[in-house]
């Protein structure tokens, strides 16, 4: 080798290769670290999403007992997919409240008629203001809120049957 400098590009590339290979081998960590865990929920009061039922206010989530808060919408297809899992959580005795985002009462009523109603209270968040202040950026999302209004767990996306255990555990931990 007359000019060792010519090896430099190869060395730089090898470094890239090792880093990228390590990164691939380590597996992709898709967990989005929640920034709201440990934060208190904002103060809000939402009117009922379905006529004749009760809406949700922040005070309802500070009764001393933990609750789940599900953010959904009738127009959101994945929300229908997670409905059986919410029913299952409800059957296990976990109280769930919900916020319907950018929705209409008649659509929410139809959604509940189609998929069942695991919710004790459903508030209507017409302009997504409450959703955003909760730190939620999409539907569906589910929060575990302890009895003092502190967010203990945030589940982003659909609750698949495998996720039920994780939510039950988070609920138990919040007690």
């Amino acid at each position, binding site marked *: *080798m*007359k*000019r060792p400098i*010519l*090896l430099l*590009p*190869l060395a730089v*590339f*090898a470094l*890239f*290769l090792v*880093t*990228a*290979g*390590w*990164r*691939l081998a380590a*597996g*992709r960590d898709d967990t989005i*670290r929640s920034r709201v865990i440990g934060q208190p929920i904002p103060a809000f009061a939402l009117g009922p999403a379905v006529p004749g039922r009760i809406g949700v206010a922040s005070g309802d989530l500070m009764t001393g007992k933990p609750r789940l808060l599900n953010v959904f919408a009738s*127009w*959101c*297809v994945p929300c229908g997919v997670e409905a059986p899992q919410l029913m299952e959580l409800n059957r296990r005795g976990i109280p769930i409240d919900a916020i319907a985002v*950018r929705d209409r009462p008649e659509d929410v009523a139809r959604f509940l008629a189609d998929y069942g109603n695991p919710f004790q209270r459903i508030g209507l968040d*017409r*302009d997504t203001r409450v959703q955003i202040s909760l730190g939620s950026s999409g539907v569906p999302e589910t929060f575990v809120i302890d009895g003092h209004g502190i967010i203990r767990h945030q589940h982003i996306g659909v609750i698949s049957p495998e996720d039920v255990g994780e939510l039950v555990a988070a609920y138990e931990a919040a007690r």
Partner: protein
Amino acid sequence: MMAEAGLAALWIAAALCLLQLCAGVSASLGEGQVLRPMIRPVAIAQGALAALSFLLLIQLFLVTDLSVKLVAANSHSAKPWLYKFAGTWGNHEGSMLLWVAVLAIAGAAVAAFERRVSERTLIATLAAQAAIGLGFYGFLLIASNPFERLNPAPLEGNGLNPLLQDPGLALHPPTLYLGYVGISVAFSFAVGALVTRDVGPLFARAMRSWVLGAWVFLTLGITAGSYWAYYELGWGGWWFWDPVENASLMPWLAATALLHSATVLATRGGLRVWTIMLAVIAFSMSMIGTFLVRSGILTSVHSFAVDPRRGLFILILLGLYIGGALTLFALRAGTIREGSTFEPISREGGLVTNNVFLSAILGVVVIGTLYPLGLEAATGEKLSVGAPYFNAAAGPLALALMAIMAAGPLLKWRRDRLQELARRIWLPMALAAATLVALLLLAPGIGLLPLLGLTLALGTAAASIAPLWKRNLRRTPLFIWGMVIAHLGIAVTIAGMASASAFTKETLVAARLGETVEVGPYALRFEGVEPLAGPNWTAIEARLVATRGGGSPMLMKPQARMFNSPVTETTEADIATLPAGQLYTVLGREDDQGRWQLRLWWKPFVTFIWLGGAMVALGGFLSLIGRLGREQRPKAEKL
């Protein structure tokens, strides 16, 4: 039947590719001389079959054959035909097939048309092209078969991501790929020349026209992609420093440097090792970009169909190809004889400085793009690098590069004198100084980068026309015109960027019906909203009447669209292009008091960004036909 034919064509093309590689290697080693005559025809047949396979996939999408998994997953029978067509490459498998098809067609074109380099170098080049091809055929056939069947076939497809349902999808990926993958030819040429140690002006001239061709498409693809993002995403920005955007910018920067260094090699025989290095880097950047996109290793708005196993497959290919080429480079480059030398103040000196700055910008972009990866590997910390870093680091370098671009074409080859240069460039410099003073007086408080950007853009625009000064315009060779127009295009683009970043006015309001909102010199009256139905979407469309002073009113109709399959909302901005800039309107949501969110921008001269991009591509194209015409002429005289 059609899917099976497509798959068969792909397998046969892969087999021909293997044959091309083996025959090429054995002929290069000197043993398989009898195989030599078959290499060119095999390369052409391989290109034709890969193209056929791609055309068959397009046909499957056009007829919406839902028994093909890829079609069912990414198309829908109710989609307009243009999006069925363009949907072919709006997914992982289809876009990889396009990738491979372009690679094979580029190799076929070299086999069919390249007569300038020595036959030995050409055969080594085609063998290198086949080696790259083989890996990617393997990737397609093993890990991403686009023709896989689905049994039973579903009744309806899943539909295409609505953001992609836009004419931009028909234009942007194919042109980008032609450039992005077409640059593979430079890589193969470099490997071929390293194998045969035949790095001379003739080789540079041959490689330069192929690079130029790919570079024109790459320029067009980036420009089209930038405009597409600008109007489709509804964010009003034209470049987001997204990893995937950077993945197309990196090969462009390397290819631009390569074009200029190849000119030194072609004209003066210098910069041999450096030119080979750049040729290897340019396509390596394309491959690394493909890896970054396909492995999902970096988060980007472009990541679709992310699969780590696919990432590993491409990473292994990268290791083989780039590692192999760089090893060959390390072994052979030391034996390449350098050509003639030159003085620092000379055309060569200017081109070298150009290369230094382009490489520095490339370095800035590479570091910014890969930094999150490296940091996470080292400390486990996650972060993303955004516009503040890129603008601050690449901006000043780009401006310095532009100053060099102004002076470079006015320098003489071999040696020149600064006084001479000053005599040629005083007028553009005076113009730049006048612009600077005018801007400081008329637009106090303007940012430093936009200020210098506009100043340099005007000076450089004037300087780039200077090579035409005192020339007989009719007898000026086409490649000079090409250079002038491309350099002018860069100045126009920079002027557009500087103007858009310095003078853009933005208004975000919640407006009631009948209310009037002002943005920049325009007043927009909000006349109403109405529902609207398209072939596979419904929308709410706003009517805004825009007037400037006492001028005639313009109707603007931005939409908020709701697509049926898959269910997604998109904003369709309405943009009015006027001589002095663009009025950009976006409709948001209705609030509970019946007010509508409106986002309005007035962007003076923003269109210059893409106009300049198109001029750069046109310049490259003129330069290409000018060079080719020049090479053809002596032959024609002989006949």
